[in-house]
């Protein structure tokens, strides 16, 4: 066991949303869908087309490149090196946060979807709040849900005395609020209630009579009066706008000759203001109080203060419980084609989704598996093998081709290229600016189809040996790959395939490398949503009608009407590289 604290290993998927590709000032996100589609497809071309071309080109010339160790890369963005940049880190997400638009046939990340509100509910009592009362209740629960002023957990209403069977319920009071987490209770701040119900209403009343609310209304009336009296506007729009110096000269004129322009003189003078309240300055008292302080326990933290924005008190005892803030359910739309990607059930209690197009159901799920008896965490200069496990969520078998950014082909290693005649063989091993070398022992392989019975199968045949798994499921693939260790396939069963990757870290620091994943599968029918199975009928029709536009998308190659292909980048992090001598 290592105690080294470093970044944990991860697999992040890259969303090629328009932001990065043309990071310029032009309004990419204009509401006009047509123009957007254009930029979108252009972006796609710039990002993915060169990728495929360079990979194929380099594969032809791999031999020539052998000696060119320091060959600078032609276009970093084309080869995936851009994934290591700081900009790209804003577009890298774990698979769980990504969506997949069927119409665009693209990954969609949180920044390329549009949110819409479906319903409001209280996260504590799960009461669905109608839109009308959301506004009047200021986005807070109008029932008996409160949060603790100290620890922001939920408070419960407690009776001061236990209600005995003999007493009537009314005599059980007074009631107070109590926190089950930090043991705070509202008796500490002298807050008790006679009835255990509609506490929110009682609290809200005090909220409305706070001095700042009164003063605000007073100010509003004052300014409103001024606005009514003075037709011409006065206050400047910005610090230095010379847009209408007329008003200025009027002001000055009136100021100098108050005789005949008295009316205009009022323009700028808001008039004498009578405040509604006066809140005295108790700053010096607070300073004295703080001076003799020995421990900070009685002083509120900033977040506690921010829960009571009208006075933000230093004293913890001045902070009151707040009603619990409501939550919303959101639906999400693809910004490009306006189709809905996520649509939850409206009811607060229901966790089901009416539409759920998450990337997890469309693209292979990649996970990192540590091999037994291999050094981990990675050590400088020591070749380490680990396993990348690709899980297929589709009902069709998947052909996967992997590539890492190309830098220099290392001589004398590996094999593989023989088997793939139908596709250009991919160079399998590169040294990149990534901190070390990455070797994909098997850049091309198949992953079996998903079917519902797999889960039961697993139960029936608990993890057998690799041989058994292969005999049962391997070899049935179409790629002509024989699944053996020679090809770097570690395990191939059910709907997943594990392949072996070897890395040689050369520098200290976090080890990351980009990986281009291209997969294709045969879609044998028009059934669009194979795995989630809960798409609306009409959406399916829309999808079919949209087929033409999809062809324009360069990342989609429909060589055969049946074969669908998609490629995406991901960044794989393997944690901190330690010094070799540390063991």
């Amino acid at each position, binding site marked *: 066991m290592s105690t080294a604290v470093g970044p944990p290993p991860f697999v992040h998927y890259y969303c090629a949303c328009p932001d990065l590709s043309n990071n310029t000032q032009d*309004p990419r996100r204009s509401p006009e869908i047509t123009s957007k589609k254009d930029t979108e497809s252009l972006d796609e071309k710039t990002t993915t087309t060169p990728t495929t071309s360079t990979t194929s080109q380099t594969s032809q010339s791999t031999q020539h490149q052998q000696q060119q160790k320091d060959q600078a890369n032609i276009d970093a963005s084309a080869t995936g090196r851009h994934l290591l940049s*700081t900009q790209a880190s804003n577009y890298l997400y774990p698979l769980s946060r990504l969506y997949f638009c069927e119409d665009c046939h693209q990954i969609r990340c949180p920044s390329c979807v549009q949110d819409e509100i479906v319903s409001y509910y209280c996260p504590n009592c799960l009461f669905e709040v109608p839109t009308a009362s959301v506004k009047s209740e200021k*986005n807070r629960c109008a029932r008996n849900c409160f949060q603790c002023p100290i620890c922001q957990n939920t408070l419960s209403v407690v009776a001061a005395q236990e209600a005995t069977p003999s007493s009537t319920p009314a005599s059980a009071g007074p009631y107070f609020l109590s926190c089950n987490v930090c043991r705070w209770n509202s008796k500490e701040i002298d807050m008790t209630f006679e009835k255990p119900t509609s506490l929110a209403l009682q609290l809200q009343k005090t909220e409305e009579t706070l001095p700042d609310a009164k003063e*605000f209304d007073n100010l509003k009336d004052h300014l409103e009066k001024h606005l009514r009296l003075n037709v011409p506007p006065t206050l400047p*729009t*910005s610090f230095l706008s010379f*847009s209408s110096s007329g008003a200025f000269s009027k*002001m000055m004129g009136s100021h100098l000759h108050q005789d005949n322009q008295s009316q205009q003189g009022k323009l700028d003078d808001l008039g004498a203001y009578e405040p509604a309240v006066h809140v005295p300055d108790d700053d010096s008292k607070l*300073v004295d109080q703080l001076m003799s302080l020995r421990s900070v326990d009685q002083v509120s933290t900033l977040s506690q203060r921010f829960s009571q924005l009208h006075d933000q008190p230093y004293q913890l005892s001045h902070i009151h419980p707040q009603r619990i803030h409501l*939550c919303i359910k959101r639906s999400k739309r693809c910004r490009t084609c306006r189709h809905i990607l996520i649509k939850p059930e409206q009811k607060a209690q229901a966790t089901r989704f009416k539409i759920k197009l998450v990337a997890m159901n469309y693209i292979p799920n990649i996970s990192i598996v540590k091999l037994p008896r291999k050094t981990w965490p990675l050590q400088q200069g020591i070749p380490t093998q680990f396993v990348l496990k690709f899980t297929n969520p589709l009902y069709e078998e998947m052909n996967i081709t992997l590539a890492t950014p190309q830098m220099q082909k290392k001589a004398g290693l590996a094999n593989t290229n023989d088997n793939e005649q139908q596709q250009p063989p991919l160079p399998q091993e590169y040294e990149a600016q990534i901190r070390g070398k990455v070797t994909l022992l098997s850049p091309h392989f198949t992953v079996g189809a998903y079917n519902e019975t797999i889960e039961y199968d697993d139960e029936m045949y608990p993890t057998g040996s690799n041989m058994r798994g292969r005999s049962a499921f391997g070899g049935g693939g179409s790629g002509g790959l024989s699944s053996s260790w020679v090809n770097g396939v570690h395990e191939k069963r059910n709907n997943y395939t594990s392949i072996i990757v070897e890395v040689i870290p050369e520098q200290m620091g976090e080890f990351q490398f980009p990986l281009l994943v291209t997969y294709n599968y045969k879609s044998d029918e028009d059934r669009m949503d194979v795995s989630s199975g809960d798409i609306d009928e009409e959406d399916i029709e829309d999808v079919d009608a949209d087929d033409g536009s999809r062809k324009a998308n360069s990342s989609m190659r429909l060589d055969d009407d049946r074969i669908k292909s998609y490629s995406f980048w991901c960044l794989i992090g393997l944690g901190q590289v330690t010094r070799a001598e540390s063991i």
Partner: protein
Amino acid sequence: MTTRPPVSSTTNSRLGSFSSWHLSSLPSSSTLLSRRTSIYSNEDRVVLDIGSRNLKVGFSGEPRPRKILAFEGQRHTNVCWDDLYDLDWMRSGRDITGAETTLCETLQEAFFRYLLTDPKQRTVVLCETPMMPIRIKEMIAKILFHRLQVPALCFVPSHLLALLTTGESTGLVIDCGHLETTVLPIYFARPLMTSVQMTPLAGRAVTETLRDLLKSHARIIQTSAGVPTSAAPRLTVPDHILSSDRLEDIKSRCILIPHGVTNVSSSDQEEQHCRSSDIYYRLENDIGGGTLWIPGYVREKACTILFTGDPVEEIRSIGECILDCLLKVPTDLRKPLGSSLLMVGGTTMIPGYQARLLQELNHLLDHVTKYKRLAGIELGCITDRGAGRVFTPSCRTWIGGSLVGTLKMAGATIQREKFDGSVPDWTMVHSPTSTNTTSSSTSTSTSNANS
């Protein structure tokens, strides 16, 4: 509600009597106080006050913001920026996309987690501080229009908003936030922009001072069972203990500004004369526990930088800024402005700030020859009269924005359809004929002032 046309720019009767006062130095008015019916909805607008440290958000017509959201630190390989932006963006070597992502996520969170409203239906009122880099303003507009698709956005000057909350129209507004302190005189609701003074001494400077002081003076007490606290070993404070979150916590809970302390005494004397108690601050989040012992001297000393300035780096103190500002305004305005100081911004909420600043100002008036010309001016705060401290200083700007929003005063409004990537920029002087909507000024302004 009737729609009133914006004032036509009829220009005449310029006056030349103020020789010391260039006419062009005064911003003239346009249409903030005019009423316009909103094209979209006369519902509440969303008021945003975006600072470098946090974001205040809420609906217009309400006396307080709904939520103050802190920006999450942007972590890159080795560096971590806690602030959304820097005053000197170009020299900080920062990547703008990081800030954009942070801002975007925070705004998204503000709308969908706290306001619970669809941004597509809400006009946004944005409180604009004078020193905010133009690129940040453009970024904000871009995110609001493109990502959140708000129908319209209007910029309103923050100092003026703060002054509105006092009900007066003349005052010297001192905004002491996180990155910088700006002093802006406002006379009859007109910001006298040419007299604006700015110093980079504000919350961040306090945090840095506090860090240094803690490193040199505070100690960690490793408590263990059986050993009394007094006998426990005292260790110097390692860097990782002083994370920015913890510093912020110590800053907001422990430090104070005592009154009646002059700057002349040497630090040794100060250490003896400090009246504040030492504080034992528990380090809860670290395994092994331990207590941070913060001497009273550190608590009192952390804020001194604001009032002494930095003579080595030639950074003016806040007091000097205020007096320099008064020197710059026309003579007859000095008196009304000097008696109407208004302190806003989060840093002014440190206990004792206002009293100490007034004391410092009077000290400067008496002892510095440069300020002899200001003799006879009585300095006083607006908050000492009228409604007093009814609003918290940190929220005053937002509250002003809320007032402006609910009264439907029109500022420089950009509609989404007309947004071309540029935002109004007060440093650009437009011709009088240009309208008050989108200024055609392109982005090359130099708001990233650095003294």
